[in-house]
C-alpha cells in the first residue's frame, strides 16, 4: 500500500488492553491487541457481539483510553479524538435540529470563507448522492440517507483514517449492498485508511483487504485473513465463498454443531 501525498495514514495498535472497572468488578474487554494497518488499507473487524469491537474502534479514535498499550496514527500517539480520524457510528448521530446541509457543515473544522464553505458542502452533498435534500431534516430521511449524511460529515475534513462501527447494521439488505458500493467508491476517491467493524461476514469480504477475526470477550485477535480477490468482488464466486467458510470455521471452532449446519 503506497503512502499517498506523502501523508502517513497508517494505524499502529500496540499491545492494547482494556479493562472496564464496574461496581461489580473488573470487566476485561480487550486483551493485548496488536495490529498494524498500512496507509490506505481497508481492514474489517468481525467478532461476536459484545467481544469489544466498538471499544477497539473507540480506543483508536481516542474517545476511550486503553488500560495498557498505545495506538499510533501516522506515527503520532493517539491521546484524544482528532478531526483527522473520522468516526461513523451505527446510529447516524445527526443533529435533529439541523438540516442535511447544516449537519454536513457542522463537520467543517478549518476556517474557510463563505464561498469556500458553500463549495465544500455542495461537493460533499454530491459525493454521498444527496443533491436535492440539502434542506431536509434528519427525521424526513430514510436510514440509508441519514447514514450518507453522517458519512459526508465525517469526510468533509478529509480524515486520513475513517473508523466505521457497524455503519450499515440497521439498514435493509439491499440498501446495505448499495451503501457498501458507495463506501468502496469513496474509499478509492479519498484513499483514506478504513477500519470497519461489522457482524456481516459478507460485507467484510466484499470490502476489505484484510479481515481481523476477534475472539469472544475479552477480545484478542484470533486470526487475520488476506482477501486476495480483485474488486469489484462477486459474492458468489468460489474464492469469496472459501474465505467465508474460513471465517465461519473460526467462529464456530468451539461449537458443538458442525459447520455445515450454518452454511
Amino acid at each position, binding site marked *: 500500500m503506497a503512502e499517498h501525498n506523502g501523508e502517513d495514514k497508517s494505524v499502529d495498535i500496540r499491545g492494547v488492553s482494556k479493562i472496564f472497572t464496574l461496581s461489580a468488578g473488573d470487566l476485561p474487554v480487550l486483551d493485548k491487541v496488536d495490529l498494524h494497518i498500512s496507509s490506505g488499507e481497508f481492514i474489517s473487524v468481525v467478532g461476536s457481539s459484545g467481544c469489544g469491537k466498538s471499544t477497539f474502534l473507540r480506543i483508536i*479514535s481516542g*474517545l476511550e483510553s486503553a488500560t495498557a498499550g498505545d495506538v499510533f496514527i501516522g506515527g503520532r500517539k493517539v491521546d484524544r*479524538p*482528532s*478531526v483527522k*480520524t*473520522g*468516526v461513523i*457510528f451505527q*446510529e447516524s*448521530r445527526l*443533529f*435533529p*435540529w*439541523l438540516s442535511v446541509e447544516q449537519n454536513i457543515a*457542522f*463537520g467543517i*473544522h478549518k476556517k474557510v470563507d463563505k464561498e469556500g464553505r458553500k463549495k465544500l458542502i455542495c461537493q460533499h452533498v454530491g459525493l454521498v448522492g444527496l443533491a436535492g435534500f440539502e434542506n431536509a*431534516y*434528519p*427525521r*424526513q430521511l430514510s436510514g440509508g440517507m441519514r447514514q450518507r449524511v453522517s458519512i459526508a*460529515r465525517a469526510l468533509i*475534513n478529509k480524515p486520513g483514517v475513517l473508523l466505521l462501527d457497524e455503519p450499515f447494521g440497521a439498514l435493509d439488505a439491499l440498501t446495505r449492498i448499495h451503501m457498501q458500493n458507495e463506501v468502496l467508491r469513496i474509499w478509492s476517491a479519498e484513499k483514506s485508511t478504513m477500519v470497519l467493524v461489522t457482524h456481516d461476514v459478507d460485507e467484510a469480504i466484499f470490502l476489505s483487504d484484510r479481515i481481523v477475526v476477534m475472539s469472544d470477550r475479552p477480545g484478542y485477535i484470533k486470526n487475520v485473513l488476506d482477501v486476495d480477490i480483485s474488486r469489484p468482488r462477486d459474492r458468489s464466486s468460489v474464492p469469496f465463498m472459501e474465505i467465508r467458510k474460513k471465517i465461519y470455521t473460526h467462529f464456530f471452532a468451539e461449537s458443538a454443531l458442525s459447520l455445515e449446519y450454518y452454511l
Partner: protein
Amino acid sequence: MNARSKNSVKAIAIGFIMPVAFLVAWEILGRRGILNSSIFPTPSRIFTSFMDMVSRGRMQKHLLISLLRVVKGFCVGSVLGLVIGTVIGLSNAANALMSSIIGLLRPIPMVAWIPVLILWLGIDEASKVTLIAIGTFWPVLINTSRGIKNSDRKLLEVGIILEKTRLQMLAKVVLPSAFPFIFTGLRLGVGSAWTCVVTAEAIAAASGIGYLIMYARELSQPPVMFSAVMTIAVVGLILDAILLRVEKRVLRWNEPDEERG
C-alpha cells in the same frame, strides 16, 4: 396543507363547544332566577360591564399595567433561570452546591414571598416584579438544567471528535438539544408569571387586573369582578398560545412526522 388548516379549524371549533355550552347554561339559569344574580351575574351582564369598561379605557389600563409587570418579571426571571440552569446542568459541582438551597427555597409558596418582598422592596413595582421573576425563575431553572443534563452523550461525542471548542459545544450541541425542555420551562414560567402578577396585585396594589378584582369586591360590583376574572383566564390562554406558536416555529425539527407532498 388545506386539509391541515381545515383540521385545525375543526379542532378549535370543538374546543369552543364546552365553554359556549357552559355560558349558555349559566345565562339560562341566571335569567330563570335559579342562580342568585347578585353573586352570579349572567354572562350578558358581565359582557355589558366588560364593554363598558373597555369603552372607558379602564380595562385596557389595568391590563396593560399587569402585562408590563409580567414582561419585566418574566424577562428577569427567565434570563436568570436560563443562566443558572445552564451552569447547574453543565457542572456537577454547581449542581451539588445548589441543590440543597434550591430544594429549600423552591417549595415556598408565592403568596408567602409577598410580605417578605414588601418588607424588603416596598409596596410598589419592585416587589411585584420580583415576585413574578421568582415565579418564572423556578420552572425555567429546573427545566433548563434538566434539559442540559439530558443532552445526548452520543451527540456530544460527535462534537468531541470534530474538535469543537467548549463554547461551540454549548451553543451548537448542548443548548439546542435542551430546547424542548427549555421551552417547557418558559411556558410554565409564563403561566406562573401571570398567576403571580394577579396574586401580588390582589394583595397589595393600586392598579392592575388583580387589583381590579379586589376593588370590585369592595365596591360590590360582581359584573366588574367577573369581567376581570374572565380577562385573566383569556389572557393567560393567549400568552400560552403565543409561546406554543414560538415553540412550534423554533422546534420544527422536533415535530412528529408530517405528510410531505
